[in-house]
C-alpha cells in the first residue's frame, strides 16, 4: 500500500505538517533535470520520506515516460475537473514514491490562466506527503517562475556548459527577485570529476555573489555516468537498475544533505 492509498483509506486524514516543497529547475533543457528529480525522489523515499513527484513541466511533461508508466489519469484530467488531484496520483512500482503525471503536448496546461495555477498550488499544498518535489520545465515562463517561488527550496541543475551556466543564473536571478531570502542551491550534473564540479559551482556562485549579492550553496555534484543513460533508455529508475553506480551514490548523498537539514 502506498502512502497515498494509505491516506485515502481513511476518511478523516490526520492533521500533519505541510510537505516540504523542493522545486527542481535548470533554465536550459537537456541537463538531466527530470532524471535528477526522479532519482532524488527515489533516494528521499529510500531514506524514509513520503515523497510525491509532481511533473511541473506543463507543456512537455515526461516524468511518466522516463519511468515507463502508463498513467490512467494525469494533471490534464485534474484541471478539466474530471478527477480530484488525489485521484491522479499514481505509485511508481518498486520505487517507493508516488507521482502526479503531467501530459506532454497539452496546450491547455501550458496556457493555464494565473488563477488556475494558484488553485493547483493550493491543492498541492494539502497533499499528505513529507516531501513534494516539483520537476519544473525548461525555460522561464510565468508558471515555472511561480512554482519556483512557491517552493521552500530551489535546486538548480546545471552542467559546466556556458549555456547551462547562463540559463541557471537566469533562474537564480528571478528567484532572488521573487524571494528575498529564498533557499536556492546548486546541483552540478554530468561533471567530469568532483574537482571540475566544484569549479562549476565556484563559477556560478561567484556570479551570484557579485551580481545578486546572494550565496549559492552547493547541494552536490553528480559525475557523468554511462549507467544513467542506460537506465533512462530502459525506462527504469537508476536506483532500481544500478543502485551502486557513482551517480546513484552521489544523488543519495544530495538527498541526505537535504533531509539532514530540514526534515523532522
Amino acid at each position, binding site marked *: 500500500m502506498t502512502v497515498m492509498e494509505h491516506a485515502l483509506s481513511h476518511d478523516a486524514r490526520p492533521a500533519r505538517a505541510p510537505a516540504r516543497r523542493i522545486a527542481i529547475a535548470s533554465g536550459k533543457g537537456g541537463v538531466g533535470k527530470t532524471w535528477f528529480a526522479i532519482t532524488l525522489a527515489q533516494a528521499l523515499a529510500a531514506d524514509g520520506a513520503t515523497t510525491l513527484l509532481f511533473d511541473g513541466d506543463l507543456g512537455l511533461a515526461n516524468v511518466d515516460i522516463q519511468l515507463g508508466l502508463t498513467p490512467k489519469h494525469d494533471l490534464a484530467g485534474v484541471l478539466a475537473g474530471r478527477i480530484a488531484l488525489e485521484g491522479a496520483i499514481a505509485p511508481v512500482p518498486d520505487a517507493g514514491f508516488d507521482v502526479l503525471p503531467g501530459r506532454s503536448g497539452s496546450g491547455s496546461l501550458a496556457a493555464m490562466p*494565473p488563477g488556475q*495555477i*494558484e488553485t493547483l498550488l493550493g491543492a498541492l499544498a494539502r497533499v499528505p506527503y513529507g516531501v513534494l518535489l516539483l520537476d519544473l520545465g525548461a525555460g522561464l515562463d*510565468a508558471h515555472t517562475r*511561480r512554482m519556483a*517561488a512557491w517552493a521552500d527550496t530551489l535546486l538548480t541543475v546545471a552542467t559546466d556548459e*556556458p549555456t547551462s*551556466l*547562463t540559463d541557471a*543564473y*537566469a533562474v537564480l*536571478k528571478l528567484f532572488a*527577485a*521573487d*524571494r*528575498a*531570502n529564498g533557499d536556492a542551491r546548486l546541483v552540478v550534473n554530468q561533471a567530469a570529476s568532483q574537482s571540475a564540479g566544484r*569549479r562549476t559551482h*565556484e*563559477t*556560478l556562485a*561567484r*556570479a551570484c555573489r*557579485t*551580481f545578486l549579492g546572494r550565496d549559492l550553496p552547493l547541494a552536490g555534484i553528480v559525475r557523468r555516468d554511462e549507467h544513467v543513460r542506460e537506465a533512462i533508455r530502459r525506462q527504469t529508475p537508476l536506483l532500481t537498475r544500478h543502485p551502486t553506480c557513482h551517480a546513484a551514490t552521489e544523488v543519495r548523498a544530495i538527498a541526505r544533505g537535504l533531509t539532514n537539514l530540514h526534515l523532522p
Partner: protein
Amino acid sequence: MRLKLYRAASVAEAMALVRAELGPDALILSTRRLAQGVELTAALDQADPPEPEPAFAPEPPEAPVAPPPKPLPGGPQGLGFHGLPASLAARLAGPDLAQSLRAALRFGMLPLVRDGPPLLLAGMPGAGKTLSVARLATRLVMAGISPLVITADGRRAGAAEELAAYTRLLGVGLVVACTPATLARALAQRQPDMPVLIDTAGINPFAEAELADLRAMASAAKAASVLVMPAGQDLGEATEQAEAFAPLGARHLLATRLDLARRLGSILGAAAAADLILTEAGIGTGATDGLTPLTPEFLAERIGPSPGPPKIPAPWIPAQTTVPLRKTPSPVTNWIRG
C-alpha cells in the same frame, strides 16, 4: 548575464581581452590553466529594463529591501556636510578647493615597487585589507607583473581561503605565513624584481599586545606599512585609530568603501591628524578594478560645493610629501599611478 570564455597565452592577455570586449565592469568567474596558456570565464550582468506586470503577485520580500543608493554627495551640501575637523575645514576655505587640499593634506603613491620593501596592509577588522590586496595584485598581473602575495591572517576563519580565491583567478602564488619567522622564510622565496603584498589580520590598535604582534611581523618583513581605513566612520574614532596605529610606522593611508560612505570627513581628518599620505580609494566590490588614485582633484569633486564641469585629470604631482621621488620611476610605480 553575458558569459564568455577567453583563451590566451597568459592571464594578463586574457584579462586584456575581457576588458576590451566586456569593459571594466566584467567579472572574472574562473581561471583554468591549459596545456598552452589559460582559459578565463568572464561575465557581465546587464541592467534589466523594468519588468512588465508580473502574471502573479510576487511574495512580499521577507526582509526590508535596502533603498536605492542616494546620489553621492558633493553637490549642494558642500564642505559642512562632510564633518571635517574645524581646523582642516578652515584650511580648505580658499577659492580653489583642489589647491587647498593639496596644501593642507599629503598625497602620494603607494610605495609599491618591484625591488622595494614588501607592502604590508594593516587595519582594523573589516577595513578591506584583503580586497585591497586582491585589487593591487590584479593590477600588477594585468600589467604583466606577477607579485608574491602573502597572508599573515591566521585568526579569521577562511581569511586565507578568501584571498586564495582571488590569487587562483590571477594565477599567482599565495603563501600563508602567520609568525615573524615564517614570514621571513616566505620572503626568502621572493624572486628578484618581484613586488610583494602582505595581507594581515585585522587588529585592535588600542590593544598593545595585538599592535606589538603586528609590529613584529612588519619588522620581520622589513615592510612598508599602509593603513587601510574605511570611509564613513565617526571622525573621533577614525582619528584615534589612525593615531593608535602610529607605532606601526605606517606613512600611507588607503581609504576603502568610498562608494558606500557619503561623508569623507573622517578619512581626511584621520590623515591630517596622523600625518598620513593619502594614496588610493577603494570603490566598489569587484576585484578587476576598483582602486582610484586619491588625488586633490578627485577629492575636490567629491566634497566641493558644486559638481561643476567634469575635470580633465591633471598629471599627478606629489606635493609636500616626504616620499623620496625616484629619478626614474620603475615600471611598476609608473603603472600603479597610470
